[in-house]
């Protein structure tokens, strides 16, 4: 038992000392900041979150919400330009976490966790002149991504989702608000429970596979190239479908950027 702890702590120490190029971390910082900057600019300029507050009768005044959104936009700009990226990421984490207090969207929780992780990564400099930096923050970003897919897949293993009921509701709701959004064959496919059930099982299998692939990426460094391409294919399949079929664009784009850029060695 004692031996196990000694070996584990030595392995852990070795892991914390490993280094990697920060080229793809910089690309991820730029992609993440760009995606969420666009989101927050649209959100603030069209008062979408403020409408949420009014319709859902949530606590929070419009001035506080708008103030937090402006702060987020400033921090995301700084993150995009690479101006004090750690401080900008930490500021974005704080601002979004405060916003989470009023609007409890999973997308906002996701942003907060990622911004916190980015705040410990060394993403300064240009991707054309990458530097060697500690690898553990990048590894944590990958493991966090894997956990999101894994936990999400496990929680989807429930009767309402697997029977196709949930996707039936989502798809048919989309059809009724945007009648020409889906092609005819897809409209008739998702108007059946069995069609939605097939898609639901597919979603669980794909998400679980992606989560496990990312865990394997961490555990088997020699296989990283192969695992990168496999993860890339799964992430694109999941999020292209979610964007088009389920009306979720920004979260998916951010997750794809994360899988594509961070798992590349």
């Amino acid at each position, binding site marked *: 038992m004692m031996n196990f702890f000694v070996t584990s702590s030595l392995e852990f120490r070795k892991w914390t000392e490993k280094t990697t190029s920060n080229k793809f971390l910089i690309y991820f910082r730029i992609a993440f900041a760009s995606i969420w900057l666009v989101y927050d600019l649209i959100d603030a300029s069209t008062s979408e979150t403020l409408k949420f507050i009014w319709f859902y009768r949530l606590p929070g005044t419009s001035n506080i919400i708008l103030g937090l959104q402006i702060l987020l936009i400033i921090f995301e700009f700084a993150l995009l330009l690479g101006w004090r990226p750690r401080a900008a990421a930490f500021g974005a984490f704080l601002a979004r976490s405060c916003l989470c207090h009023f609007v409890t969207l999973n997308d906002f929780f996701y942003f907060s966790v990622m911004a916190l*992780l980015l705040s410990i990564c060394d993403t300064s400099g240009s991707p054309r002149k990458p530097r060697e930096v500690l690898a553990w923050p990048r590894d944590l970003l990958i493991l966090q991504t894997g956990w999101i897919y894994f936990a999400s897949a496990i929680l989807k293993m429930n009767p309402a989702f697997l029977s196709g009921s*949930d996707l039936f509701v989502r798809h048919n709701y989309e059809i009724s608000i945007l009648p020409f959004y889906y092609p005819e064959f897809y409209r008739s496919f998702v108007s059946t429970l069995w069609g939605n059930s097939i898609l639901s099982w597919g979603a669980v299998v794909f998400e679980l596979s992606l989560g496990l692939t990312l865990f394997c990426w961490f555990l088997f460094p020699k296989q990283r190239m192969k695992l990168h391409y496999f993860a890339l294919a799964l992430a694109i399949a999941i999020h292209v479908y979610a964007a088009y079929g389920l009306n979720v664009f920004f979260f998916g784009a951010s997750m794809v950027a994360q899988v594509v850029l961070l798992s590349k060695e």
Partner: protein
Amino acid sequence: MLKKLKQFYNSPLFVFLFILLLVVPQLYAFALQFAEGFVPFKHEPERVHLSWDMFSTKIERCTLNWYPAITLGTERLSSLRDASLPLEWDLTFDAPLGYRYVADLGCHAGGTPSTKVNIKCFLQGGKIFNDEFLCN
């Protein structure tokens, strides 16, 4: 001081503490799902912050229309869909009760007693429910 902070950041202890900070709330949220009744293949999860339950909780959605359109501030709304951007920011609730609540909210804020409300709901099990009533 700065040097000491930098040394701490590079220490395994900092990495360990940071991992704890990241892992504990997420594992707690995940475990809470089981404590609140989630059983794989048997019972649905509930909304628990940080448990990554997107698309996992049981939902029912409705479309909501007012005839004629109601006036909220400077905006005229003939449906809830008109209140927000249709993509990504679409205003939705997870149960018909939420839509019923907004229907009344719209009636009181900008409708008349003769304003007709139509709610069409997509329910679990592939069912569809339609309801029409006056604002009153």
